[in-house]
């Protein structure tokens, strides 16, 4: 079985400051990793994904994440945040196997960017 832990439920930060949203996972099989963003009253939008290759993954809106297999982590970072980055961020994993693409989500981290 797989589980995802997002270590911070809320992260307040000032505009133009750097931010890191932490994600740890547990799995007995290899997984693919994802970060999604959800703006108020909207669906989820894929920010970035790690399937294979370089452990540093770049996504949309200036976000990047680094896969650390030994620490089973996939932390999301942005060097300088904007007010428009205020949203809920979800980390998710998908076990690599045949069949349907099951996603296991963390509980989410609410990023609040203040002026």
């Amino acid at each position, binding site marked *: 079985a797989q589980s995802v832990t997002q270590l911070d439920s809320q992260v307040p930060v000032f505009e133009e400051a750097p931010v890191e949203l932490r994600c740890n996972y547990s799995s007995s099989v290899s997984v693919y990793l994802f970060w*999604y963003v959800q703006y108020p009253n909207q*669906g989820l939008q894929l920010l970035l994904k790690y*399937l294979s290759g370089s452990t540093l993954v770049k996504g949309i809106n200036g976000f990047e994440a680094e896969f650390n297999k030994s620490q089973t982590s996939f932390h999301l970072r942005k060097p300088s945040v904007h007010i428009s980055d205020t949203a809920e961020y979800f980390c998710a994993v998908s076990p690599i196997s045949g069949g349907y*693409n099951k*996603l296991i*989500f963390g509980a989410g981290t609410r990023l609040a960017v203040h002026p």
Partner: protein
Amino acid sequence: SQTIHQWPATLVQPVGSPLSLECTVEGTSNPNLYWYRQAAGRGLQLLFYSVGIGQISSEVPQNLSASRPQDRQFILSSKKLLLSDSGFYLCAWSKVSYEQYFGPGTRLTVT
């Protein structure tokens, strides 16, 4: 390009009334389809998934059901709503690349 639609966008229903939420996908064929529920301030709970027409798997026992009458149509239903059914319902689709793409969601309030 692919798009996913959900309707209605918002819905207020009394306890005990029936429910039908619809999701359709355009621009792809034979997608995997999913229904999620997001309760206030909580993460996403997978309710149902489907790998083909008429093939539905349930992740969580509840008073909801799902159907897939056409390749790109996924319907979430209930015969009698409970207060606990309130939430934000999200439909998603995927193909072989593992990531899922989400619709805009339906906000359901059961009163």
